[in-house]
């Protein structure tokens, strides 16, 4: 009796609060038929915004992947002064408001920012341009790969690396022959999370982008523009693409966790 | 007050955990359920505690059926293998738990807990958390907690297995004394024969969900009813071809004779000291190895390579 009541309440909450938003995205996106959906998705401006989002992710994700491996390696394999501080700083980008994440770059590179005058003199555009979007995205996704790798490296311990060392392996050999193969799964998953977040980031990017149609519009920003212009069906069609990315991430996560067994 | 277990069976899927077990536990008795893991002893303990419902059979107290009674209403004191102390409560509140949930007046709770703290010799530690206690101290808290509501029977699941050897021995002696003092009917599960024999009035040896033998430690040690019981008690070996059919010989029953004519011809392969005894490895004429566990005086003068005769003071054949 209690079991049925509690299960019902839990399912009701999940249905109304979580499932309904997903369903309404799909319903609204297809409200005028598949043809209209396709038209909205293949629209020139939507296509440029998808291309920009992919381009930003293509720059940001590899950088943060390298950073993630390096940071996880340093933090998991060594004990040094300042390590705790570094760990805390690593979490900061995830807990700061996305609006603040965008703002800091405006303060550095905007027209009134520190480097603003110099950049203007040299005709370099960062804010309201692609470099600003890349920086803001890099900021908000900074620790995502490191966060996946760190617990794995901690739990694996350093026995295998030390063993390889005593067997005469060089530093790079230790990494490529021993460490890298064992972190491949978690690395791939971290990269996936980082990519999904990079494609979907809204707040930080919105602050630095300037919303220049066809130029600094990422896909999430394009959703906002369409929505604000009351093109609801088109907005939901574009949103359905982001929804697919999100759902795909979730399903891959499921596979990843059932594989690694935690 | 005696507890009768009548024809209890319990299956987990296709696994027979208990297979028609019948047993009477006398008032004030200290009974050991002895057996290897998976033999059903812990399941029986959980059935007694009301945590498992048997598929068939009854648990009675003086003819009064308890089977349908849940763990909550059975008033048994159960001590878990890993103690299961409540980590968020201190020692005092852990012990007081069964009284608190029965809504006893605070003064009574206080008095009873103080009494138990004294009994288990933990007076100074009332306000420690379980995490701040040693293994032996946790064990005693668990025991005090189980005793607080004056249970009709005290059940202990592998009570000493989570402790290191020295503490284990101290606690055994202490538990035996405590039992004599309180006289609570007590059942404990163990896979350690020394523990069972040292503590218990009677021992039930479990094998594949059945009671293989029930008796006092002396009865079980001296007249093991089956090869399983004999093997489980350990320090025994089976010999073929020295007598008619296979026979089992305990290491401590072997004596060595330099000049005797009777006995099996043997040659000493190795001599070494194992704690209080001397272990002599012998090669028999049949090629089999025989082990003799001798008192140190009896081993004096023996040397490797010596030819002599080995006599088994007792042999077990089981009419095979």
């Amino acid at each position, binding site marked *: 009796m209690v079991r049925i009541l509690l299960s019902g309440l839990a399912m009701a909450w999940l249905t109304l609060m979580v499932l309904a938003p997903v369903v309404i995205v799909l319903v609204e996106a297809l409200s005028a038929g598949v043809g209209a959906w396709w038209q909205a998705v293949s629209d020139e401006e939507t296509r440029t915004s998808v291309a920009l989002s992919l381009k930003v992710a293509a720059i940001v994700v590899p950088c943060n992947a390298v950073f993630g491996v390096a940071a996880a390696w340093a933090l998991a394999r060594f004990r040094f002064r300042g390590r705790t501080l570094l760990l805390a700083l690593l979490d900061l980008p995830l807990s700061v408001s996305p609006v603040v994440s965008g703002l800091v770059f405006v303060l550095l590179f905007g027209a009134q920012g520190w480097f603003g005058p110099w950049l203007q003199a040299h005709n370099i555009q960062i804010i309201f341009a692609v470099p600003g979007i890349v920086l803001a995205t890099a900021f908000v996704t900074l620790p995502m790969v490191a966060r996946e790798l760190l617990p794995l490296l901690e739990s694996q311990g350093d026995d295998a690396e030390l063993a390889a060392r005593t067997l005469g392996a060089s530093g790079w050999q230790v990494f490529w022959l021993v460490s890298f193969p064992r972190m491949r799964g978690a690395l791939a998953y971290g990269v996936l999370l980082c990519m999904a977040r990079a494609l979907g980031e809204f*707040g930080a990017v919105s602050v630095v982008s300037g919303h220049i149609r066809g130029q600094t519009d990422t896909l999430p920003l394009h959703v906002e523009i369409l929505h604000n212009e009351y093109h609801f069906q088109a907005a939901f069609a574009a949103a359905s693409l982001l929804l697919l990315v999100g759902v795909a991430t979730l399903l891959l996560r499921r596979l990843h966790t059932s594989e690694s067994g935690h | 007050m005696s507890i009768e277990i009548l024809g209890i069976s319990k299956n987990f899927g296709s696994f027979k955990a208990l297979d028609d077990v019948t047993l009477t536990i006398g008032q004030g008795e200290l009974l050991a359920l002895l057996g290897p893991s998976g033999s059903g002893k812990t399941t029986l303990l959980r059935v007694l505690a009301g945590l498992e419902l048997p598929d068939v059979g009854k648990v009675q107290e003086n003819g009064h059926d308890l089977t349908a009674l849940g763990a909550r209403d059975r008033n048994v004191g159960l001590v878990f293998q890993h103690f299961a102390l409540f980590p968020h409560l201190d020692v005092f509140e852990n012990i007081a738990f069964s009284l608190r949930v029965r809504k006893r007046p605070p003064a009574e709770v206080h008095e009873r807990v103080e009494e138990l703290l004294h009994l288990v010799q933990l007076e100074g530690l009332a306000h420690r958390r379980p995490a701040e206690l040693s293994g032996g101290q946790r064990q005693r808290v668990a025991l005090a907690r189980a005793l607080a509501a004056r249970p009709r029977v005290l059940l202990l699941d592998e009570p000493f297995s989570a402790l290191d050897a020295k503490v284990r021995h101290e606690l055994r002696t202490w538990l035996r004394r405590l039992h004599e003092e309180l006289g609570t009917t007590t059942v404990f599960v163990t896979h350690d024969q020394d523990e069972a024999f040292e503590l218990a009035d009677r021992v039930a040896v479990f094998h594949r969900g059945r009671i293989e033998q029930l008796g006092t430690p002396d009865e079980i040690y001296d007249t093991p009813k089956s090869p399983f019981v004999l093997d489980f008690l350990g320090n025994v070996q089976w010999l073929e071809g020295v007598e008619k059919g296979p026979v089992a010989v305990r290491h401590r029953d072997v004596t060595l004779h330099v000049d005797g004519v009777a006995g099996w011809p043997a040659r000493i392969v190795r001599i070494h000291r194992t704690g209080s005894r001397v272990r002599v490895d012998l090669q028999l004429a049949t090629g089999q190895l025989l082990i003799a566990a001798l008192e140190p005086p009896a081993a004096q003068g023996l040397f490797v390579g010596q030819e002599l005769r080995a006599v088994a003071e007792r042999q077990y054949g089981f009419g095979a």
Partner: protein
Amino acid sequence: MGLLTKKRAPAAMPGLGLSLGITITWLSLVALIPLSALVIRAGSLGFQGWLDAVSGERVWLSLRLSFGASLIAAGLDTLAGLLIAWVLCRYKLPFQAFWDVLVDLPFALPTAVAGIALTALWVPDGWLGRFAAPFGGKIAFAEPGVIVALAFIGLPFVVRTVQPVLQSAEKELEEAAESLGASPVQIVWRVVLPSLRPALLTGFALAFARAVGEYGSVIFICGNIPMKTEITPLLIVSRLEQYDYAGATALATIMLAFSAVILTILQLLQSGRRLALR
């Protein structure tokens, strides 16, 4: 590197210099230098300047809404999250895996998508909004809308911190309580909930922190009515749009300080949990 105090044996484990070098360089370029720019910029306002920028009724109302709605949303998440974690761990739901995946959805859904979807649901003639309308309740474009959006994004934080604790909780503790005579309600109240308290607090703090800074999922549903449904991040953006960098910076320092405080609290909770589990 003067940073190093202890190395096991010389060069036993390779790569400290390189990995730490990459870490500190990239972290500084992308996060530390920009964040310190914010702090320095705020410092240049002077205390009076800063105070002027963060006082005024509009700021006060936005802060009250941001923190108030976040508190309520995190509270709702804590209740619902506990319930959902309990049901997922202890009962077998039909399509269990489906519900389990669903919990993570707010993590994975880009905030802009969540924003427009929630708005469409809760507008007065939306699927769910129409049930509130007859009672005079307005959800979208009013304060409740803010709470709905914040409760949406915060839910997985609570479920995912409580769930592992519930899963690893020893069944024995509950059995022990039962054999000591506790009723089911007493078991939940005296044994289960106390052991979940640190996880619930952590989940609450995570959901709260996320909610206070949230932007994307709120701006669509809140209707952006200044002094009424304007959350602080939105006020920062609108100040930026009016080139009021000083005002935006001052507000941002409040948000940053809040993040730092929450991170510290979470750190303390974490070490407290480790201590309790020892």
